């Protein structure tokens, strides 16, 4: 609970600091608040506190909270000079991101359906505004509107699903619902089944899994890159944690029922994400589509429910988060300098900016899943989990998709190192360097020595 309180208090403090024009204090204040909440999260390890049956800070929640808070800290470090160019009121942006984060912490720790809904809405409403925060930019406005409409739509599905489940079980409590399923395994109310499917659809919208992914590329492209970075890493991780908590935990007894549709979603997601990413000329759109494909890999953990499912998502999400943050950080730098975010604008980057190019190379190798990077361990855990039940065809299909992935991730490396381009020198602020170096270290460390994260949860 003190994690959420700290984040919210920080958000309000930042807002007031903004009112009193203390611009210089915004970032330190935010980082301080986030570090304190991170400390709270880490010290709460193994304590397993339940708050009024609505939220539970178990290790699962703490691990995912820590990951999302850390990701947010990294993204805040990238804000230097980012927002101030567009607007005077940057305190509001900070506040909105922090509010979204508070929603996220609720999403990873809920034990009651109503808290799931509240968490998702707190996060989403903040994101609707953040996506459109460049109010004079047409694409940004479009992204915001699209996100809002789709988001509201998916909320409808989610809410309807929750209602049906409530109708069947008479409770919002995950524990009670789980007990009901175990108790009435043979005679589950017919209301329950459509409820599960509707909730699944609603959550798939949120995590951008196909065929409910249509908003993703446009919103990711239209939103400011920094917000896209936040959405595709921290928000996505939270969405998966929420998904996992509900399906791997509460709905587990009905696994046989919801697994086949989920399997279909996984296959479509992998296929559409990878194949469309292949044809993108724009780096940012490629990242958007590839993030769809990563949603497919992440959902793998739900196909076969094992004791490791949750932890596998954690490993994968961590690998994906840090690699994506590198990718977006470099994208922001390149776009600030060249004004474009196509693959061509990365041409010849390797010569003048060895550090940036090396970081992005490692990020791409990690996203593609090359050994000795965190991304490989993440993918490996997913494959291993599914192979446990000998879903070999699914793994073979995923491997073919991974192959497609290699192709488009390499396009960036090819552009940076092998193509002649205008020799640009990026202005890399110290904070960017810190983020890049830290993310690279984490990516390689988790790839070489993943033991510390493998049995966390």
């Amino acid at each position, binding site marked *: 609970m003190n994690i959420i309180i700290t984040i919210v208090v920080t958000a309000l403090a930042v807002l007031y600091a903004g009112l009193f024009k203390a611009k210089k204090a915004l970032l330190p204040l935010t980082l301080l608040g986030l570090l304190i909440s991170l400390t709270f999260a880490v010290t709460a390890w193994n304590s397993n506190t339940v708050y009024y049956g609505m939220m539970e800070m178990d290790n699962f929640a703490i691990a995912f909270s820590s990951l999302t808070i850390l990701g947010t800290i990294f993204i805040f470090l990238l804000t230097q000079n980012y927002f101030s160019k567009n607007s005077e009121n940057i305190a509001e942006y900070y506040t909105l991101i922090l509010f979204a984060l508070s929603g996220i912490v609720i999403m990873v720790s809920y034990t009651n359906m109503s808290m799931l809904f509240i968490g998702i809405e707190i996060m989403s409403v903040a994101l609707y505004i953040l996506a459109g925060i460049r109010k004079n930019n047409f694409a940004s406005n479009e992204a915001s509107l699209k996100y809002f409409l789709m988001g509201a739509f998916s909320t409808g599905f989610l809410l309807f699903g929750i209602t049906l489940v409530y109708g069947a079980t008479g409770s919002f409590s995950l524990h009670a619902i789980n007990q009901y399923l175990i108790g009435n395994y043979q005679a589950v109310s017919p209301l329950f089944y459509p409820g599960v499917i509707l909730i699944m659809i609603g959550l798939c919208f949120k995590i951008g899994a196909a065929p409910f992914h249509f908003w993703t590329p446009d919103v990711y492209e239209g939103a400011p890159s920094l917000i896209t970075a936040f959405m595709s890493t921290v928000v996505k991780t939270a969405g998966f944690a929420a998904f996992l908590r509900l399906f791997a935990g509460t709905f587990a007894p009905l696994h046989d029922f919801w697994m086949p549709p989920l399997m279909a979603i996984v296959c479509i997601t992998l296929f559409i994400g990878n194949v469309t990413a292949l044809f993108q000329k724009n780096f940012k759109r490629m990242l958007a589509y590839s993030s769809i494909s990563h949603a497919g890999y992440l959902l793998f953990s739900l196909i076969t429910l094992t004791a490791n499912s949750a932890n596998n998502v954690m490993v994968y999400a961590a690998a994906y988060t840090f690699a994506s943050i590198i990718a977006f950080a470099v994208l922001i730098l390149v776009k600030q300098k060249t004004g474009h975010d196509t693959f061509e604008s990365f041409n010849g980057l390797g010569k003048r900016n060895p550090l940036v190019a090396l970081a992005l190379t490692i990020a791409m190798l990690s996203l593609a899943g*090359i050994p000795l990077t965190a991304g490989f361990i993440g993918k490996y855990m997913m494959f291993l989990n599914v192979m446990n039940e000998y879903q*070999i065809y699914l793994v073979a299909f995923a*491997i073919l998709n991974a192959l497609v992935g290699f192709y488009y991730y*390499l396009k960036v490396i*090819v552009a940076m*190192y*092998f193509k002649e381009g205008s020799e640009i020198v990026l202005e890399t602020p110290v904070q960017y360097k810190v983020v890049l170096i830290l993310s690279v270290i984490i990516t390689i460390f988790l790839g070489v020595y*993943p033991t510390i994260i493998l049995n966390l949860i």
Partner: protein
Amino acid sequence: MEQLLILLIFLPVVGALVTAFTGNAAKHVALVFAVASLALTAVVAGQFVPDASTQFVVNLPWIQDLGISFHAGIDGISLITVLLTNVLVPVIILASYQHNYKSPAGFFALILFMQAGLLVVFTAMDAFLFYIGWEAALIPIYFICAIWGGKDRIKVNMKFFVYTIAGSLFMLLGIIYLYLQNPAHNFDIQALYQLHLDPVQQGWIFWSFFIAFAIKMPVFPFHTWQPDTYTEAPAAGTMLLSGIMLKMGIYGVIRWLLPIVPAGVQDWGNTAIILSVIGIVYASLIAFKQRDAKRLVAYSSIAHVGLISAGIFALNMQGLQGAMIQMLSHGINVIGLFFVLDIVFSRVKTNTIAELGGIAKSAPKLAIAFLIIVLGTVALPGTNGFIGEFLLLIGIYQYNIWAVVFAGLTVIFGAVYMFRMYQNIMLGKTNELTVGFADIKGTEQIVLGIICILIIVLGVYPKPILHLSEASVQQLLEQVNQKLTSVK
């Protein structure tokens, strides 16, 4: 003892990290580290007892939760490939001395990184470690070929990378399957040897591994990436690919495929031999038609590797021992050929056979060295190629007489196209291009000298090398046969 192997594997890594920061002096630093590795290898080879045991074993816990350990060791089979790697890497670095590569620090650092990856592949006793080494060797060579290659390098290398990574991923699938079948849930090679899979499972595992190995070697019809990549890669890249990297595939078959899924090998080995023999004939015929000398050597390499692969799947002592020695010989010869062609290219900017001629007149030393290498390649008795091809053909003969009839064509065809190439490049009349051809000097002389000496010494006195691997190969075959009888 244990520290020796760790040092052997990680010395190139240290070398790479140091080299990366040395700017224009990189080639000297890289050479020092490569020679140090060679010296270390000599120490290892000196202490090695040629029995069937695995020596210098390192077994450190790594990712214990997943049953992965840093388990490596050297037996006779490993020692030959380790020797191959550590003898050829300094030669390749020395062969690159005349080139002014842009950003040399990166170039030579990547070569050393690749060396480390190769050493992991050749010593791994843990399937997962093997896979890591397999990929770790691929990434540097991809960058070497794609950054310093010819003008079509981007397209060609993408094909190369996607091909090889596709193979690797299927191998990974097989490795995960084996891991799950293993009650101990680890990747230890001995545990995997002990597995009892039914023939259908073995068939699947066979293909998941074989495709990866076949792409690397390459065996027909998985070879289509090879000629383009060899042609477009920088000289050192071609040498690394043809001299050392393709041996990863051969080594993989011997070390992992045969003992783990012998029934799969028995069921599908015939197919593998047929593919290899088709590859031999097909590649030889195409080699005839090549106008570019580099492509000719690339195709001849497919033919030679086809012979090795057929010899292995014949599953007998001669075939396997022939493969061991031929791995070494082929590496030396093919590096020699590519180096000569690189020298020619750097002087006259072409490798088109028809445009050359008469080089022997102005460059007699080069001509002699080239002749020795060509003789080694066409397996003249007294050169290194002879021993290997002879043993391989005996091995294949014991398996099937028709296979050896067609496989034997490689010797005849090889002699024809190799001598014709030699004749057209070195002999005959000089033209405007070749009239003032400068003879080899300095490092070129040293490199070709080393290669020629190796060709002749191995050809005249191959016994020590054959002796190194004999016991290990013997044991491997016994293991395979034992397992095959227990399945029945």
